[in-house]
Structure formats: structure tokens, C-alpha cells
């Protein structure tokens, strides 16, 4: 994929096509301690500039060269976007790296079992190439039995589709660079006269491996199909997926909702057959211009209700900050079940008290889908006495089943079982706790007496009653040696407002001027 190497500048290349007298465009990078040309356009090639030429040589040829530094990040991002788009053909799309620079440079697609959906291998390859070309990319692609052979033939071969079983013969005439070997190994093999794959394929293996390393034999075996090679797909492969293709792209929100409902209805039956319920799924919308939108929803409990799934997606779309940009329309919409859990076959009551979609779990799912999963939270407790550390808030979606039963069933939320159950007459902890204790000016008895008067948020309070101190020692294993002790007081002022405040540091031992902080409000 040539254009992929151009990074951000490929758009510039496109614009320049309209101006024949514009200077040639090249992309440069530092290779072997010199700024060299790593990509160039047609016009530059016509002016005699070559790949791997140093920039100064190229400048000598064409003084007005338009050069751009290579942007690896942008290249990679673009390649990942193309990879996401390629998932319309198969879920197994992996990155392949260039052996010389170790940068991701191309894509592997495993189309086993997918070709018949598009009318055969020829049709798939032609469709893939035509669509990528239409998006402005120059593509070199090859379909072969092994990833190694496909890699070699795409770069150094001529044929686009190698017939089944013919890959062994096809790669033999190719140069050794086609075996994804490091350039210095190719060079040293060349020095002893081994230049093509065919040269080494017939040689005795042991001396070759001894001299050039086992890697050479491994790559050879992988190309010839003697050793299996697994590609690691970028996205986790969905457990189930269902899709709709459209001859006429869909643009309207209503049509999209209909499609989602139909797709959701389609996955219910396979889920039932496997005894699963949906926990996490994602919707991929392939726009005709190559852009891919992805929407994900999660559910708190395994779900097997098409209407609910469609409703979750409706909330998810409604919660997007800007509308789903349909552009010229979507020509492929796919629903993937990313994660499914065993469905506890709860028999529905005959006179179901709760209408479907009205229960507590369904509410949490809907809120999470619309507002974002991390905005719907529940308390988790931790084993510490420092008040602000004694609890955290976790998204409900990550906690498992909600409700009182959850404390028994959810193993990941064992901390909640530590919740102090006994409600007594004496209340020592406030209802409202400030995220950060607030510094205030206080007059208090020295060394460890209660506060008498304090000023907080610009208002003065006179203390009428107080209880304390409740001493909470610092966590030296976390905060280090210098951490100070806190003396907490419950304080009521003359009007009846009740506060929770603490003195930070023991007078005389830890500090000479202990600071006072406001930490909470009682009811």
C-alpha cells in the first residue's frame, strides 16, 4: 500500500495532481544517518529521483522539491483506519511490519470462509482493490495460501491471485527479500550467490540454519506452507456477528434504527442456541467513502431481547455529542457480539409484574449507553481508615449484577461485603464528604483541644458543641515518613450546623502550626 506510507501528505499529493507545474512531492526520513527519500510521487520519479536517495542529491536534481518529513504516527493511524475498514471483508485483519524498519507497513487479511459471501475470491480481490483505489490509495495485493507467500507476491510478484497449492512454485523465482528477512541477512546471502527463494529451497537445511540462523528456515517454511503461521488480528474476533449490505446506501436515522432492530433480531436465535446472553456488543457502520463508525454498548446482565438491544443503541446514538455523520450513507452495517455470558434461563412469570425493559438492570444499561458507562457508578469499599480512600466509585457495568444479591454473587466486588451494616444511635461519619479536605482558619486549644471558632468559605462559625478527637493515623507505607496524623472532630455551631473537620498533624511532635481542614457535613 503505497499511499499508506505518505501519511498526512497524501492529500497534498492529490491536490497537486491538478497543477502540472507544481514541484514534485517526496517524503523524507532519517535512514542510516542521512535524510533520505522514503516515498515519492509520480512526478518526482519522472524527474529522476529514486527511493533511498539522500535529500541533498535529490535537491541537486530538482531544486524546488516539496519535501515532507515522514510521520510514523500518522502513517500508523491511517493504516489502522484502513484495517478497520477492511473488516468489512473479514474479521481477521492483522498488521504486517516491514523487516527493514520494523514499522507497520501492510495488512494481512485471513479470508478463509469469507470469500463466498462476496461471490468468490476473484470478486473479493477485485472489490477490495477497486474500493481502495476509489479512496485514493495505491494498493498492491495478493491472495495466496500462506501469509508468507502472499506477503512476498504482493511486493515482488506480478500475479494477484495464486491458485490453491501453487504458492510454492510461485515464490521460487522471487528475490530473498520476499521472505521477510532483515536486509543484512539478504545481503550476506547475496554475497554467497543465493539471490532467489528457489536457490535456498533445494539446499540442505542444516548448514544454512547453522550459518544464517533458524529464522531463515522458519521464514522459508512459512512461505512454502511447511510451517503454520498465525496472524494476530487487531480487533478481538466477535463471538457472533451479523451484517446487512445495501445496494443503495442508507442515510436516514429511521432506516438505520430499522436495520439495527433487524440485526438485533437476527442474533437472538444463535444466542439462544448457544445458551448465551449478550453482555457487550458493537455496531460498525461502514460509510461509502471508507469511514467506519463504531458504537459499543454494554449490559449489566446477559441480555437476549432484540427490542432492548435496539433501544440501547438508540440511546447510544442519541447520546453522541454530534450526530452520527452519515455522509453519503452507509453501505454495510454490522452487529458484533463481542462478549456473551451464559444466560440464566429465568423463566418469565406468567403475569410478569415488571414489563420488559422496565427493571433496574435495564435502566442502568440505558443510562450507561446514553451518558457513558463511567457516569453510572456504584460504591466499592476499600480497607483503610483514611476516609477519602475508604471508598471508590466504579462504573456499574464493570461490577456485574447490581442489587443486594450482587454482594454475594459478584466476586469482583467482595469489598462491599465490608460495609458497616449496623446503624446505631451514634453517628460518627458525615453524609457528605468533600473530595478534597478544605483548608480553613481555626482557633483551637493547644495542643489537642477542639476548635472554638473557625472560618470556612468566607463565613465565621462559633462552635457550640464538639466531640473528639478521633485520631486517624497516617498510612506511612503509602505516604512516606512525613505524613501527618489527623485528629477528627464532630462540631456543631451555634445555629446547629454539624461539620466534620480535622487537625492535620500533632502539635509539637509533627508540626508546630497544625492546619485545620473541613472534610464533611452531617445531616
Amino acid at each position, binding site marked *: 500500500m503505497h499511499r499508506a506510507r505518505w501519511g498526512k501528505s497524501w492529500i497534498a499529493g492529490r491536490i497537486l495532481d491538478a497543477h502540472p507545474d507544481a514541484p514534485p512531492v517526496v517524503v523524507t526520513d532519517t535512514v542510516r544517518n542521512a535524510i533520505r527519500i522514503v516515498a515519492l510521487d509520480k512526478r518526482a520519479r519522472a524527474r529522476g529521483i529514486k527511493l533511498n536517495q539522500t535529500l541533498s542529491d535529490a535537491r541537486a536534481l530538482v531544486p524546488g522539491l516539496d519535501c515532507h518529513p515522514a510521520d510514523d504516527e500518522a502513517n500508523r493511524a491511517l493504516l489502522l483506519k484502513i484495517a478497520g475498514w477492511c473488516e468489512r471483508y473479514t474479521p481477521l485483519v492483522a498488521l504486517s511490519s516491514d523487516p527493514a524498519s520494523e514499522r507497520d507497513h501492510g495488512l494481512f487479511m485471513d479470508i478463509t470462509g469469507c470469500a463466498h459471501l462476496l461471490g468468490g475470491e476473484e470478486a473479493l480481490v477485485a472489490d477490495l482493490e477497486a474500493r481502495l483505489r476509489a479512496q485514493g490509495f495505491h494498493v498492491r495485493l495478493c491472495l495466496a495460501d500462506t501469509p508468507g507467500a502472499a506477503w512476498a507476491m504482493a511486493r515482488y510478484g506480478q500475479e494477484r491471485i495464486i491458485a490453491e497449492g501453487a504458492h510454492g512454485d510461485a515464490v521460487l523465482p522471487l528475490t530473498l527479500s520476499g521472505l521477510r528477512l532483515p536486509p543484512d541477512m539478504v545481503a550476506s546471502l547475496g554475497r554467497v550467490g543465493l539471490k532467489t527463494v528457489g536457490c535456498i529451497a533445494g539446499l540442505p537445511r542444516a548448514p544454512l540454519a547453522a550459518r544464517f540462523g533458524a529464522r531463515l528456515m522458519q521464514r522459508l517454511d512459512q512461505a512454502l506452507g511447511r510451517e503454520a503461521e498465525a496472524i494476530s488480528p487487531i480487533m478481538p474476533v466477535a463471538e457472533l456477528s451479523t451484517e446487512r449490505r445495501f445496494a443503495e446506501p442508507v442515510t436516514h436515522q429511521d432506516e438505520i434504527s430499522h436495520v439495527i432492530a433487524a440485526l438485533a433480531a437476527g442474533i437472538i436465535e444463535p444466542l439462544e442456541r448457544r445458551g448465551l446472553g449478550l453482555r457487550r456488543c458493537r455496531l460498525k457502520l461502514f460509510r461509502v467513502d471508507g469511514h467506519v463508525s463504531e458504537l459499543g454498548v454494554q449490559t449489566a446482565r446477559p441480555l437476549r431481547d432484540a427490542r432492548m438491544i435496539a433501544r440501547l443503541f438508540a440511546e447510544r446514538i442519541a447520546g453522541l455529542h454530534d450526530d452520527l455523520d452519515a455522509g453519503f450513507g452507509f453501505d454495510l452495517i454490522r452487529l458484533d457480539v463481542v462478549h456473551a455470558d451464559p444466560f440464566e434461563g429465568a423463566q418469565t412469570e*406468567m403475569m410478569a*409484574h*415488571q*414489563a420488559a425493559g*422496565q*427493571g*433496574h*438492570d*435495564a*435502566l442502568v444499561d*440505558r*443510562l450507561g449507553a*446514553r*451518558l457513558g458507562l463511567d*457516569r*453510572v*457508578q*456504584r*460504591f466499592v*469499599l476499600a480497607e483503610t481508615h483514611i476516609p477519602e480512600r*475508604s471508598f471508590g466509585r466504579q462504573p456499574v457495568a464493570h461490577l456485574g449484577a447490581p*442489587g*443486594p444479591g450482587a*454482594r454475594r454473587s459478584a466476586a469482583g466486588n467482595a469489598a*462491599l461485603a465490608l*460495609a*458497616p*451494616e449496623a*446503624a*446505631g*444511635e*451514634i*453517628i*460518627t*461519619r458525615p*453524609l*457528605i*464528604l*468533600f*473530595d*478534597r479536605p*478544605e483548608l480553613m482558619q481555626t482557633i483551637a486549644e493547644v495542643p489537642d483541644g477542639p476548635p472554638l471558632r473557625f472560618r470556612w468559605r*468566607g*463565613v465565621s462559625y462559633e462552635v*457550640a*458543641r*464538639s*466531640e473528639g478527637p478521633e485520631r486517624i493515623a497516617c498510612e506511612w507505607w503509602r505516604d512516606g515518613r512525613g505524613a501527618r496524623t489527623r485528629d477528627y472532630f*464532630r*462540631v*456543631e455551631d*451555634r*445555629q*446547629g*450546623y*454539624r461539620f466534620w473537620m480535622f487537625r492535620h498533624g500533632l502539635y509539637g511532635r509533627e508540626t508546630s502550626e497544625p492546619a485545620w481542614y473541613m472534610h*464533611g*457535613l*452531617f*445531616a
Partner: protein
Amino acid sequence: MSLSRLQTATDILKARTRAYEAQAYRAHRGMALGDASEARPLPLGASAVDHCLDGGLACGGLHEVRSPLARDIGAATGFALGLAARAIEAGRSGRSGIVWISGPATRVDGGGLFPAGLAQYGLDPSLITIVEPGDLQGAMWAADEAAGCNGLAALIFQIKGNPGRFDITATRRLMLRARQSGVLALTLRQSGEEEASAAATRWRVNTEISGADDILERGVGAMRLLLTLERNRAGRTGQWLLAWNPKDRSFHHAAPHPASRSKPPAHSLDRLPASADRPGAPGQMGQVLDRRQDFGRAS
């Protein structure tokens, strides 16, 4: 079909028929505005208040709790959580859980619920789901969704001040949804003025000096609220001094402290509901900033 299952089905059908009959009866009396299948009111536990409310708060419905000053938010939160705890305690069928929705402006003061405090207050923190939408529109949507959820005991929607978008239409929608689903919906308004809303009742909560403790002379006693029922669609209003008992999760009447700044009247006081745009109404939020009155940063 076995005999026992047939029996069960018959029982269910009978129960259903009874429910329909009861509903028809209420409709006949002009009471039922939704299918209030659980129309049993929620008593607060304090006799005078319950008497004034004809037995208690209507469970499916919207009620407003407000604290005029920002620093009264502790007391107002306590009252709202107390009501929610009672709603859970009432244990209506299949209802558990409280959804706490805080509007975007309420976090500015930097306070959040403290689980240890909740547990001592008589509420199980694991029953509370906290929702913090990024904007008011999202918060109102979340409140609407929660109000329509059958599996919920109570919903507390915390807002600050009187945002224009949370108007009478929005409250009416909340009210209708809560009435249909039977959720106890509460708006907890921090440092807000009284304004027209569709809520069935509106409560003002003020902090009151805690009761004197005989054992600990200078100790802090149990909390007390000066509770004013400012508005009641169904009847009378009043003012009471209440205390919360975390053990049996109920409110009870408390004797006024001798040094109390305001003495609740012996009889309930009747007040007409005030409209927000009445002449002489307090100004909009953010216009008045009297630091002696209030500690709120934004109020």
C-alpha cells in the same frame, strides 16, 4: 397442567381482578390519575406529619425537598435519604435500589455521598446507583428514565438553584412518569428558591440545634430538622421539628431546644403556594451574593 399450577393461575387471575376493581373504584372516586397499583402512602413515622399528609407521602409521585441556604444541604440530604430509606424499608414488591442523579452544577461544591456515613444513617450504600451526567439535559433525561423504572424504590435528583430548563413541564413529566411507575421521586434542590412546579409536595429543610445530651454536656446530640411543608397539593401545610432514627429508619418528633432560634408553632401553619414570578420574589440565582448569609461559592 397440574392442579397446583392451575390453582396458582386462578389465584393470580383473582388478584388481578381485585386490582382492576380497586382501580375502577378509585377512578370512580376521581382519585386515580395513573394505575397506582401501590397506592399505599409512605408514612414518615412522625404522627403529626403523617396526619397532615393523610397517612403519608404518595409513593408514586414527585416531591421536592429544598434547602434555602447552601449550608443546609446536609440536613436536606439527610431528609431526602431518610425518605428513600423508608421507601426501601416499605419493601414494596420487587423494588430495591436508589438512583442518585446529581446535576452538573452540584459537584462544584466538591461534596459527594460518603458510604460510611450512609451506612450509619441506616442506608445500605450498595443499593445506591450514582449517576453524574455531564449536562443538565442529560441529568433531566436520566431522571425521566429512572422515574419510569418499575424496579426502583426511590430516585433522588439533586440540582442546584433554579435552572430555567427544569421548569414546570419537566416536573410535570417527572410527576406523571413517577405516578405510573410508583417510584418515589425526589428533587433535592440546593440553595434554590420556591418556584412553581408539578410536585405533589414541597418541603423546606432547615438545620436545627441538636438535642441536649445529658451525659455529654458539650457533646453533639442527634440531628434535628426544622421541616416546613411549604406546599401540599392534597391539603394542609405545616411546620415540624423532626429527628431521624437510623436504627428503625423512621422520623420522630423532637422537643425544641431552649436556645432554638425559631420555635415551631403549636398548630400547623397554612401557607399558600408561592409562584416564582410573584412581585417581590427573590432574584435569580447568582444575583445575590451575601457571604454572611451563605457559604456557597456559586449561590
